[in-house]
């Protein structure tokens, strides 16, 4: 039963996000994904990247989604978003943060539908996580994670939520 629940979480939340992230990186931003070396795990602890953005979903499936980027990858994403335009030195941190937020916003917004009824999941505005080094699972929560390797470094995707709410909700749908 536990295995099935984990598969539900991964199939309904993590895998669509992973698929959309790969296509967004390669097709829209020109960042080649080296391989599908993503590792889907359900760890007790996640080491967060220095550059991490987070979004929450609302409605019947309430989870937190984080997306962390290696430094070089985030710089590359910023350049892709800027489309060759130069940015003033005093503006560069804010641009970097907005790119970090916009990447997660676009990927999550385009990837997730409610696994119960197929409707859209509402999402919160992205927030940036500073200074946090890791996420720990407690017994009432779950973490599912995947890593995408690109030529410019890794992107770490995690889905975190209260175990009961997203396992119970996801159990309404046959996968």
């Amino acid at each position: 039963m536990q295995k099935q629940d984990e598969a539900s979480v991964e199939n309904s939340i993590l895998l669509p996000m992973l698929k959309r992230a790969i296509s967004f990186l390669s097709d829209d931003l020109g960042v080649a994904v080296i391989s599908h070396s993503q590792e889907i795990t359900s760890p007790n602890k996640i080491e967060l990247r220095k550059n991490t953005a987070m979004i929450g979903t609302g409605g019947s499936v309430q989870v937190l989604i984080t997306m962390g980027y290696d430094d070089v990858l985030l710089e590359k994403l910023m350049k892709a978003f800027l489309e060759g335009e130069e940015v003033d030195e005093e503006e560069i941190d804010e641009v970097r943060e907005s790119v970090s937020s916009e990447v997660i916003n676009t990927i999550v917004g385009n990837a997730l539908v409610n696994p119960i009824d197929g409707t859209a999941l509402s999402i919160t505005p992205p927030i940036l996580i500073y200074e946090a080094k890791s996420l720990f699972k407690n017994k009432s929560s779950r973490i599912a994670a995947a890593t995408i390797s690109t030529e410019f470094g890794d992107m770490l995707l995690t889905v975190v939520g209260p175990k009961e709410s997203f396992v119970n909700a996801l159990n309404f749908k046959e996968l």
Partner: protein
Amino acid sequence: MLNILIVDDSLIIRKNMYKYLLNLGHNVAGEAKTGVQAVAECKKLKPDLITMDITMPDMDGITAVKKIREFDKNVTIIMVTSHGQEDMVASALKAGAKGYILKPVNEEKVAKSIANIFPQYKIETDDDELLDD
């Protein structure tokens, strides 16, 4: 030339939208980062068109559309959104928005979206299929 208000909490989206709109020959009358600012700027600037993000702090884009429609029935509002937010787009259209642009945003999508509402600004492109996204 349209006078346009850009509403988005993301700096990079505002910067890119600004560039696209100037390239398309329009005037950017102003920018707003939240729905609350959008309502205030709309009252002040009286734009012809607003590009409106949906998910924003303070006040979301749908609520902002409703607030704007309370005092301005004419301004054209185009939502900027994602595939997964169709329900919210439907709510925004019901509230008075006229169209939407799906993220990731690029100049061609913006041009097509404007031309759908203002046919006089239609721009010939080599790839109409792309604009149908």
